[in-house]
């Protein structure tokens, strides 16, 4: 009996070791050797450095920013903000499949259905011209919104986000109009939203997520996916 327990323990250690050595499903090797607080501080510093790199808007800087964010995740694999920042840069640079993978990693890590992450994944599928997959995630996102709003019915911010997600999911700007009408005077600076939303379309929103400079990268990805599916 004692031998079996020891064997199981050693096997478990070996498996954990193998997993951390090969990286998680995001392809990023994690480091759990430091206390959590210290890990988070280090990861946050890397994340903030990446944000500054991103602001220079140059390709080299964006690649460097991605590398820093991967380092941040490696140090603190539960730091979801770094995943989100990484996923948005990946998407912006036309690496939309990678972006989906990164966002799905957050869901897996957090073991929760984050409404924003679900929305992000849906956006990616829409960009990849896979509307059926996109709709699944839009629905999930809106379900989580409904549940959250039940707990925080007075959060206008939450309602604004929900209406925006509904607009994209349904490709219907009346959701935005409804929100603006209903919450005029209640939402801070509703005029600002009104001005910005007055010209928005779903297409414009999705286009804003991928830089025009990387459209060819994206097109290649879309073509490859179509080929794989047809095969």
């Amino acid at each position: 009996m004692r031998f079996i327990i020891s064997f199981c323990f050693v096997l478990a250690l070996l498996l954990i070791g193998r997993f951390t050595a090969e990286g998680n499903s995001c392809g990023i090797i994690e480091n759990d050797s430091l206390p959590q607080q210290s890990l988070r501080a280090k990861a946050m510093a890397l994340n903030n450095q990446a944000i500054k790199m991103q602001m220079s808007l140059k390709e080299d800087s964006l690649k460097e920013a991605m590398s820093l964010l991967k380092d941040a995740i490696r140090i603190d694999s539960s730091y979801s903000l770094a995943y989100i920042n990484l996923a948005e840069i990946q998407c912006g640079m036309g690496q939309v499949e990678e972006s989906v993978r990164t966002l799905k990693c957050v869901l897996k890590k957090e073991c929760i259905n984050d409404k924003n992450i679900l929305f992000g994944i849906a956006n990616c599928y829409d960009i990849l011209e896979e509307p059926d997959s996109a709709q699944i995630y839009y629905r999930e996102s809106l379900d989580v919104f409904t549940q959250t709003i039940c707990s925080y019915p007075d959060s206008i911010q939450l309602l604004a986000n929900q209406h925006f997600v509904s607009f994209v999911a349904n490709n219907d700007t009346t959701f935005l109009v409804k929100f603006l009408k209903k919450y005029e005077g209640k939402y801070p600076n509703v005029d600002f939203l009104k001005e910005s939303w007055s010209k928005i379309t779903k297409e414009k929103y999705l286009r804003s997520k991928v830089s025009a400079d990387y459209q060819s990268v994206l097109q290649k990805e879309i073509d490859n996916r179509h080929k794989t599916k047809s095969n």
Partner: protein
Amino acid sequence: MKTVTRKSLNELAKIMAVISEMNQKMYLGGTSGSTGAFDESGTTGYTGVPDITGSASGPIIYDGGWTGSAGGSYGGYGNSDGSGSTSGTTGVTGYYGTSGYDSGFTGSYTGAYDGSSGCLNNSGNSYYYPDNGNSNPNLPNNGSSYNNGVFDSGSTYTSDNPCSYDDYCIQMSSGTWGGGFVQGVGYVGSSKTGNATDDVAINGSSRFTSAFNFSGGYYKLVDSVGVQSLFMVKGGIEIENGNVTVRASARSEVNGARYSGVIELLVNGTVVESQTLNPSSCGSFIQGGYSEIGMASFNKSKYGYADIKVQLTVSYNNSNYEGTGGWAVWPIKEIIYSSK
């Protein structure tokens, strides 16, 4: 208390700071707003600014070199307590109004033109002054008591009565824009100086101005941010003698947003020049709630009559959102000028 006596404009120019050439161009024609600028004869008022020939009947084009005589009432020269002179005159060569402003104030004028967040002078009124650390006592107002210290445009749309951006866009696109003060942009010349489809400004001496606005950062996937990450960019582009100057400001609802902007010059679709927008040394007019991204300029005349585009890229970050670490919005690129 300093007493200011009535002097001629020439005498005043010797002893007091003179408004910069750029500001002259922006606010030329400061008057009561109803009569507009006068031509050199000093008798006939019209709502634009005179063309290079000074002809009242000619096209309303400002060549950048005419500093003209502004008609109507100017604000008087005030004292440090803001009481000002009361001996103003009106008319073709008048330069005194009925109320003064504080000529000793040295603050910046990057606040809102609507007065909501502008600088205060000693008497507690809202004013906007160049951000060069110098007082500028030559800034006239519209002759009314303590107005916002901004020159009138000399047309129907003045700093006191600006044209909304949407109305401006409609008029500009329909070719009926006659010049004036545009909300969030500042003074924009007449559309008769050119439009985005011609290339009159490449080598010519005429001046082209246009305004732009666009949004980005529609939704950040971070919990408690979402639509709050939205940002809007407003600005203007000015082309004169081949020199392209871009000014831009931005607004978002996120505290601590730090903006970054880059302009690129594309010739036949290829980026040939790129510049980062930096805050203007002489300040800028900005709509309430907006922050200055900056300005940048370059000369495009060396590229001749090629297909030329000016592209502006803007992004912002929030370096430490609620103590959880920073995030940035994905940059938005927009063509703000196209020669074809």
